[in-house]
């Protein structure tokens, strides 16, 4: 979906006043909303449907007299609630980061970092890149502070961990789960929208499972990421791109289970390969869903959802007529619409970047390397009697009681040694046995 023709709703997250349609004047400096980023009182709010205008009841003068630097709260007022709610879009960014404990995120919780301490801003250009939006003004990476050899003890373990850094993104080990404090959305089926009599229903954490405006939702919490090779580039499907619909069309009346089976149109996928030295194994949340497409033009359809006003006869959220919504939405985007529509499966890879655990929360070796399970020492490769505490590495995934005590549901991770599925990533199996990407181990192991 896309903000075109839905501006008044979507631009409540624009740092400006009055972007309600394509007549918005981007050159007029008075249209800038300084307060949304520079509020320090926590009282500034925008009207959700007001094209970026603030809530009329707040004391703007008081807020203006207390401006200051940005904070997790100001950035989070939009970035924590993208997609229509707290934690909906991002795998590991949500309102808990306003006041995080150190196990939420070591940087923001342990060290009280604000966003711009990593996303170092110059002349209001904020570096960082996302899997979702293509625009970028520079990158923010772990190595900006941590260097290429971040494990800086002098022991054997640090040596091995640093070796991993050429092949594995930091978050793979250091953010082993996502949505740890709050469920995040992983499924959105638009094809079932429109039933105003259907109850909303709530999931176990209070999250809605259906809404007549939007359709069926699926959520996850404490989830193991999907891993893929990534060199930092993304392959995107953009508005106006023709897509191959073969095998991706769903019957809107089929069961939810049936709808999920089959091929997906890829909206955003990591670029990379095991053979590429610049690619690393990287963790992602995969967002899947069902959305409309035009079988004649092979374009994904952008509906007009949010009404322009009282007189609007085409907005889906007012009139519940997809046909009119597609005609208006595509016209607003300057794209053709044949008048025929189908529902297709799509997926989108969201890279995990935040909620980095303290070091003791990183994955243990055995959580990926099944070949090490049951080992007691490092004797396989090293002289015996090395002083490495192998037991420490062997604790992975065994005992989950404290997790349950704190309200997690980690049962699906008990006794796991397959955080990375090496075969899915192109290996014959555990590289300890089968060799790495570029180096063969000196000794074969049976």
């Amino acid at each position, binding site marked *: *979906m*896309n903000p075109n023709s839905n501006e008044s709703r979507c631009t409540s997250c*624009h740092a400006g*006043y009055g972007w309600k349609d394509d007549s918005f004047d*981007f050159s007029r*400096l008075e249209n800038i*909303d300084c307060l949304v*980023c520079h509020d320090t009182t926590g009282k500034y709010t925008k009207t959700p449907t007001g094209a970026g*205008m*603030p809530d009329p009841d707040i004391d*703007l003068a008081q807020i203006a*007299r207390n*401006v200051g*630097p940005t904070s997790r709260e100001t950035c989070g007022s939009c970035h924590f609630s993208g997609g229509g709610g707290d934690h*909906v879009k991002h795998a590991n960014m949500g309102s*808990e980061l306003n006041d995080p*404990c150190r*196990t939420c995120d*070591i940087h923001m919780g*342990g*060290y*009280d970092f604000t966003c*711009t*301490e990593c996303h*170092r801003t110059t002349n209001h250009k*904020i570096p960082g*890149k996302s899997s*979702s*939006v*293509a*625009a970028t*003004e520079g990158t923010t990476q772990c190595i900006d*502070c*941590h*260097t290429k050899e*971040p*494990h*800086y*003890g002098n022991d054997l*373990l640090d040596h091995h961990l640093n070796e991993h850094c050429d092949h594995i993104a930091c978050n793979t080990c*250091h953010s082993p789960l996502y949505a740890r404090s709050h469920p995040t959305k992983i499924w*959105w089926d638009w094809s079932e929208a429109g039933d105003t009599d259907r109850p909303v229903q709530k999931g176990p954490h209070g999250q809605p499972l259906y809404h007549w405006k939007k359709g069926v939702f699926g959520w996850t919490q404490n989830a193991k990421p999907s891993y893929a090779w990534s060199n930092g580039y*993304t392959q*995107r*499907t953009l*508005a106006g791109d023709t897509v191959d619909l073969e095998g991706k069309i769903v019957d809107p009346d089929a069961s939810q289970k049936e709808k999920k089976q089959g091929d997906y149109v890829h*909206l955003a996928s990591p*670029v990379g390969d095991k053979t590429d030295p610049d690619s690393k194994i990287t963790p992602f949340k995969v967002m*899947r869903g069902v959305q409309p497409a035009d079988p004649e033009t092979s374009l994904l359809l952008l509906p007009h959802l949010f009404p322009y006003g009282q007189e609007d006869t085409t907005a889906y959220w007012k009139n519940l007529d997809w046909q009119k919504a597609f005609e208006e939405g595509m016209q607003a985007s300057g794209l053709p619409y044949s008048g025929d529509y189908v529902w297709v499966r799509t997926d989108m890879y969201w890279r995990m970047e935040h909620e980095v655990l*303290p*070091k*003791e929360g990183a994955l243990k070796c055995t959580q990926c390397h099944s070949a090490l399970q049951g080992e007691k020492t490092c004797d396989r490769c090293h002289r015996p009697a090395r002083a490495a*505490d192998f037991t420490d590495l062997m*604790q*992975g*995934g*065994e005992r*989950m009681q*404290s*997790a349950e005590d704190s309200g997690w549901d980690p049962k699906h991770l008990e006794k796991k040694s397959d955080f990375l599925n090496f075969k899915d990533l192109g290996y014959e199996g555990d590289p300890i046995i089968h060799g790495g990407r570029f180096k063969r181990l000196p000794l074969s192991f049976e």
Partner: protein
Amino acid sequence: MKVRLHPPDIFLEGPKKRKTAVFLCFILGITASSMTTAPAAPGPEVRTEQEQARVHAAQRYPFIAEVEREDPVLRKLRLHRMGLDSGDITHEYFLLSSPVVNADTDTYQPVRFMHSKHASALNDNCAACHHYRPADKEQSETVACRACHKEQSHPQAPSRVGLKSAYHQKCMGCHKDMNQGPTGCQGCHRKNPPDHTNLVSLPEDPQPREVTQACLGCHEDEARDFVTTAHWLWKGPASYTVNRQHQEIGKANITLNNF
């Protein structure tokens, strides 16, 4: 409500054999004592690294008037021979915040100093910063900067560099010499913007754009910068999107998603 996450047992440290396993640069801050025993599951009572650093920054250090001057080459060698290294570090993270430093101006916020990370980057050369030792042999071989460096022209050591100068000369000097690390103010500090209470002049019950007008009175340059950015235009260089690297793309034009 504050969300508390307790790591499950897979996320608890086992006992460490090494006196410190400095395991992940920068992500540190657990005290030396907790590195030798498995900590209990952290709860609300566990202080964050930042809280510990604030407490530590507030500690008063008695002034060390007499120091032992030693050739830096020989001192470096001697400390290495002593076996002094990052494993002996008790405070892995400091907030460099001292009333001495802020006596005249308070334009910038305290510096976060990643002690262990610097020790590692310097190959455990403690002498690089801890250049002299207290003359009193009972004292530690290495002491905090602020134990020797106080206000400029301290009556007991008038020729000694003040704390603010000491920090700036040592940090920026080394960053320049090593060609690594920030050398500008905002590389280490966040700005402390001035109190705007009396700077903002507004009509009664101002309209949003009237507030922005007031901001523009001083910040027109910032506004001109801002209107060229992705947060304003909702599009920007798609530098990391294959086949589109030279296009301006974003929600304002052709980005789409499945939300």
